[in-house]
């Protein structure tokens, strides 16, 4: 049973990735190619992908006995899942943001692709990997990533739309609205990142008897968080908006990616032990 589930998981992931790919292609056709009728279909494929993806994650969870937060494959998969699920959940009410699908679905495809490329080997859990604080820690980083991805999607679309006044990207909200979306999701990313750090600190406190050790991941995480605070303050007090704010947010997002996916490779990081 366990072995079958474990064999099943990468195949389901592959199917989900293909479905995300279809959803992404339809979203791009709908928004850029002005084929509005395709937009609901893109969404339907994304739902389907999400369903398959959910089954894949559960299958693996059951098979390996721990949540999707140990190997790189699991983390990337969970990030994609949270980003898409969060996006679908918020756009149920926030209809204006739906066209951000052109950014979210391809990102999900990319994350899944890299995940499958790194390979679904199972890693065994070290004794420190347990408890509610660990779960909260990773969950909030996933949320932070998902919201930051949405925000940066809005910023990128803002830049594209502001440069193409000829009516391309017609399905996308007006630039001021995109700008506001980026601002709000950027703010949420900041909040979730903060709580992720907090939960991480509490976890570290239980697991290693210290809540903060200035290891590379922790340090860069803090720097990223402060960078997001900088973005929010620039908007708020220096009335930064539009293109300038969009570029700053993209920079923050790149920093966040660096922190999430690369600092754990640095030697001497506690996280390095587990994520190599």
């Amino acid at each position, binding site marked *: 049973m366990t072995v079958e589930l474990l064999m099943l998981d990468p195949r389901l992931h592959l199917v989900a990735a293909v479905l995300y790919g279809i959803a992404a292609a339809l979203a791009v056709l709908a928004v850029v190619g002005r084929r509005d009728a395709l937009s609901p279909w893109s969404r339907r494929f994304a739902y389907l992908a999400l369903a398959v993806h959910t089954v894949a994650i559960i299958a693996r969870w059951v098979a390996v006995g721990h949540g999707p937060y140990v190997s790189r494959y699991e983390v990337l998969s969970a990030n994609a899942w949270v980003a898409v699920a969060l996006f679908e959940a918020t756009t149920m009410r926030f209809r*204006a943001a739906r066209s951000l699908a052109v950014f979210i679905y391809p990102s999900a495809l990319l994350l899944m692709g890299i995940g499958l490329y790194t390979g679904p080997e199972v890693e*065994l*859990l*070290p*004794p*420190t*990997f*347990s*408890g509610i604080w660990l779960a909260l820690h990773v969950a909030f980083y996933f949320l932070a990533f998902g919201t930051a991805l949405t925000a940066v999607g809005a910023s990128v679309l803002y830049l594209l739309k502001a440069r193409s006044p000829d009516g391309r990207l017609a399905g996308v909200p007006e630039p*001021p*609205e995109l*700008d*506001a*979306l980026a*601002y*709000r*999701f950027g*703010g*949420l990313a*900041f*909040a979730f990142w*903060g*709580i992720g750090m*907090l939960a991480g600190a*509490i976890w570290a*406190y*239980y*697991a*290693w*008897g*210290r*809540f903060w050790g*200035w290891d*590379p991941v922790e*340090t*860069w995480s*803090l*720097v990223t968080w*402060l*960078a997001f*605070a*900088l973005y929010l*303050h620039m908007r708020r*007090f*220096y009335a930064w908006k539009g293109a300038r704010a969009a570029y700053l947010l993209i920079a923050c997002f790149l920093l966040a990616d660096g922190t999430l996916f690369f600092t754990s490779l640095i030697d*001497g990081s506690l996280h390095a032990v587990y994520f190599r």
Partner: protein
Amino acid sequence: MALIFVLMSLVALGYVIPRQGTARAGRLALESPELASLLATLGLDDIFGSAVFAVVLALVLVAAAAAMVHQARIVWRRTFRHAVPRSQTTFTTDRPPAEVVAAVRSHRYLFAGTVLGHGHYLRQPWGLWGGLLLHVGLVVALGAGVLVIGTERRAVADLAVGEVLEPQGMWLYEAGGRLSSPLVLDAPLALESTDPTFWPNDELRQILSVLVIFEDAAEETVTIEVNRPVRRGGLVYYQDQAVGHTFLLEVARDGVAERIRADVPWPPDRATSSHADVALETGAVLQLRSSLDDSAVSMIGVPAVVVRHALGEERSEVATLTVGVPVMVGPVSVTLVDTLRWTRIIVVRNHGIGVLFAGFFMIFFGSVLIYMTAPREVYVAGSETETVVIWRAFRFRESVIEEYETLRQELQGRER
């Protein structure tokens, strides 16, 4: 603003420059001693402990406290005082005020008060409190952080099974913040047992230790595991990830006998042995090696023991020890008296962790309030012939302006 930037740069700098006492600092000192000593002279090798860092932190604290007061006043005014804004977003309609108010309320606006004949309605007024909550949380968290770092005390001990640790403690290491006093246990404690478990690939899975605390003739047992510490009194007991075998030896040379204890770490896997060096009073060094017997399916087996004796350049042959049987290793006679397990425990005393976490949760909820809500207000005033509606969003106007348009269309209002 500038402060945040300075703080960020300091953190980044503090990361780039190796910190005192870390492995990286050691490497730097070896590779380029000039640079290392220059950094030390400038006090750059311990940025997070430096006075500059403390001053910047204090400034942030003061500024955030000021921001807190400022924001409290704004929120109070917006929620409880009513002043008609000079908003551009306003329309008039022929509908009577009661109907207009009903429409406004159907958009989930709440009645807040009246002023100069205007009814004041707020939607998502709780969203106004986000900024205040965030900055209060910031001040609380920073304040608590300083308190925790200043008063925290940690002590580390390697205990063999059966060994008793007196309150004053034979600590391997004991240190803490500037405001802390040495850590003293409430009562003596002993390690009753320690049991590591392993994954099939020999990696550590968990360590479970049982401690006995002797309080006033009563004995209390406390069970700790990695990541599952126990708080008792004002102290927290942690299981570290270090575990291994303790060898109690009797060493004799030229008629002088010595009793020594050597803590050897658990071998990393079945193929590799681990070792520990012990210096004898006579100047020689014993190297003890421990490996796992092949039969061990899990790693909990009886270890084989090897003793090596190095004297200057000279190395004795390797000898295997059995309990109670003296062996000659070079010029030294060694007897293994007993084999026990040892493990490392950490005892921590601190104050303010709860407050620190409360501060962080306030930051979190404050931020959610700020970005998940778009508080807005409507003023409604009626005369004989027409009703005036004034609309204002406190933030994210672009996200909610549609609501204003909807309201205007419902009431067939005319832009003014």
